[in-house]
């Protein structure tokens, strides 16, 4: 059992900044992450010897390096990488976390138990994928997958690629791929840019973001890649060998229904398609943290203004970053700072006055970033019209290979009324990913209420532990 005054789970922008702020206020911090290097999703990078590529693949890598090195060199912070938390429980006195992790670098993973009175959850988010015929063909992936192959491993996902979906994330993905020599044969944003018109004032008060957007647009323009608006990938096609050879794109209406007759086939060897992000609330659910449905339909951890999700006189659980609602790296950094300082206050390392003085500017910055995040959720909303892209044979649950037709049968023939019924009758969401990919789509497909969405986002364990992995445990 390893104890620490404060434990932070997740070493993305939120978790790193939380650890740094708590440690700067004299808290002993243990920062746990399942990756090999700090940075989380946004600041995913390769080992130091490939730094020149790291710098060219990131918009602001210098900022990442500064924060990463401050965390790594801090004498109050211990970093535990490659540790996957697979189970967590909270009681009146604190939190117990079970991880599968190598004890020393190069060891096989074994189970390690961590304990703390003050936990900060910063587990981030993963790409949201929508089902369509052929979305399970190898070569179809999320934009995050293409980005992580490139930023984390220096590998391009294909030679000839289509990038599609919705949201600002499509821009950095497309521009980093073209810069690495990929032929981007199509870049499709589902929404019209006109949706920005009623938010111009917010856009103009976020000049940094606007410049970042121009930076990507300039790169794309240099490579003669034009973004087309109002289109979506509605089908993928495989070769006889079973791998991707082409996608069909179609014009879609603002409600995401297809304009029949507008379909067009595009040859490609990889397609990166994503619809924003879904917060990873698995740990939060296991800990019994309060959750709610955000304006974009995502289930998120519900926190107060100090990022506290759960607290009594002896313990606390804070949450920061995407897990409290998708908002990007800047908002994640602010939330992390507030969570770290709040822990320091609860530990008595700083006074209420010191807390107020040091957080005043951060509160204002968080509010500003939150406003921008809300606008993004409005502009890049995902309406349920995608339900008319699927056919009865389209898989909705990739793990258990359950089709939309089987879900329809569970509803029409067996009388299923909510996600749980459908799960029991069809095995939807019962596979290895535990509903991470399909859960939100099932609720959208059925059109269920918030309570159903929250219940359905709970997972019994955070990551499936295979017997094979346990068998490697030298202690067993």
């Amino acid at each position, binding site marked *: 059992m390893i104890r620490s005054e404060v434990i932070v789970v997740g070493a993305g922008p939120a978790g790193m900044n939380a650890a740094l702020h708590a440690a700067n206020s004299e808290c002993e911090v243990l920062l746990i992450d399942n990756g090999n290097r700090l940075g989380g999703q946004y600041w995913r990078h390769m080992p130091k010897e490939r730094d020149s590529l790291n710098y060219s693949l990131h918009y602001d890598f210098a900022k990442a390096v500064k924060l990463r090195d401050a965390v790594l060199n801090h004498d109050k912070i211990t970093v535990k990488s490659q540790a996957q938390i697979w189970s967590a429980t909270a009681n009146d006195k604190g939190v117990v976390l079970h991880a599968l992790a190598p004890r020393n670098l190069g060891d096989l993973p074994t189970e390690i138990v961590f304990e703390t009175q003050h936990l900060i959850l910063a587990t981030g988010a993963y790409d949201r994928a929508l089902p369509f015929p052929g979305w399970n063909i*190898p070569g179809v992936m999320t934009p995050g*997958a293409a980005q992580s192959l490139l930023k984390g491993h*220096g590998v391009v996902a294909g030679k000839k690629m289509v990038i599609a979906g919705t949201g600002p994330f499509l821009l950095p993905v497309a521009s980093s791929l073209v810069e690495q020599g990929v032929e981007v044969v199509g870049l499709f944003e589902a929404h019209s840019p006109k949706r920005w018109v009623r938010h111009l004032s917010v856009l103009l008060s976020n000049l940094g973001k606007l410049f970042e957007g121009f930076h990507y647009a300039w790169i794309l323009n240099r490579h003669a890649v034009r973004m087309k608006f109002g289109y979506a990938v509605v089908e993928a096609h495989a070769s006889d060998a079973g791998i991707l050879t082409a996608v069909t794109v179609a014009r879609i209406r603002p409600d995401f229904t297809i304009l029949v007759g507008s379909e067009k086939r595009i040859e490609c060897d990889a397609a990166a398609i994503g619809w924003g992000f879904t917060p990873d609330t698995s740990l939060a659910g296991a800990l019994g943290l309060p959750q709610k449905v955000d304006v974009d339909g995502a289930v998120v951890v519900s926190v107060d203004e100090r990022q506290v999700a759960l607290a009594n006189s002896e313990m606390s659980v804070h949450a920061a970053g995407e897990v409290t609602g998708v908002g990007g790296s800047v908002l994640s950094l602010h939330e992390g700072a507030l969570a770290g300082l709040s822990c320091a206050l609860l530990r008595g390392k700083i006074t209420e006055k010191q807390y107020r003085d040091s957080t005043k500017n951060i509160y204002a910055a968080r509010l500003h970033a939150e406003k921008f995040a809300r606008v993004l959720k409005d502009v890049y909303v995902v309406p349920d019209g995608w339900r008319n892209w699927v056919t009865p044979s389209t898989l909705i649950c990739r793990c258990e290979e359950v089709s939309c037709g089987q879900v329809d049968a569970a509803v029409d023939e067996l009388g299923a009324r909510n996600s749980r019924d459908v799960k029991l009758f069809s095995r939807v969401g019962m596979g*290895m990913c535990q509903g991470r990919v399909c859960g939100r789509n099932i609720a959208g497909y059925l059109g269920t209420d918030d309570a159903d969405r929250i219940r359905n986002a709970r997972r019994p364990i955070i990551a499936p532990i295979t017997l094979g992995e346990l068998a490697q445990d030298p202690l067993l």
Partner: protein
Amino acid sequence: MSEKVITCTLNGVILTAISGQSIAAAMISSGERINRTTRIDGSFRGIFCGIGACFDCLVVVDGVSNQRACITEVRNGMTIQTQRGAGP
């Protein structure tokens, strides 16, 4: 500092990669898109989420099935096999 080259095998054939790369990255750069066949209809799957969330990229590593290729780093001498169904 120079990049270190790792040598392992994929379905018995030599696969080279750069130290720090994931199995998925090494497979894609060698032109291999298929990580496994599914348990029920035996269709092909490859990398999908790229960050360990979806469990689509499962391969058999040193005889142990259900390993996520996207978050498992290649090591010298590793034997990687595409997984059939639930694996061996």
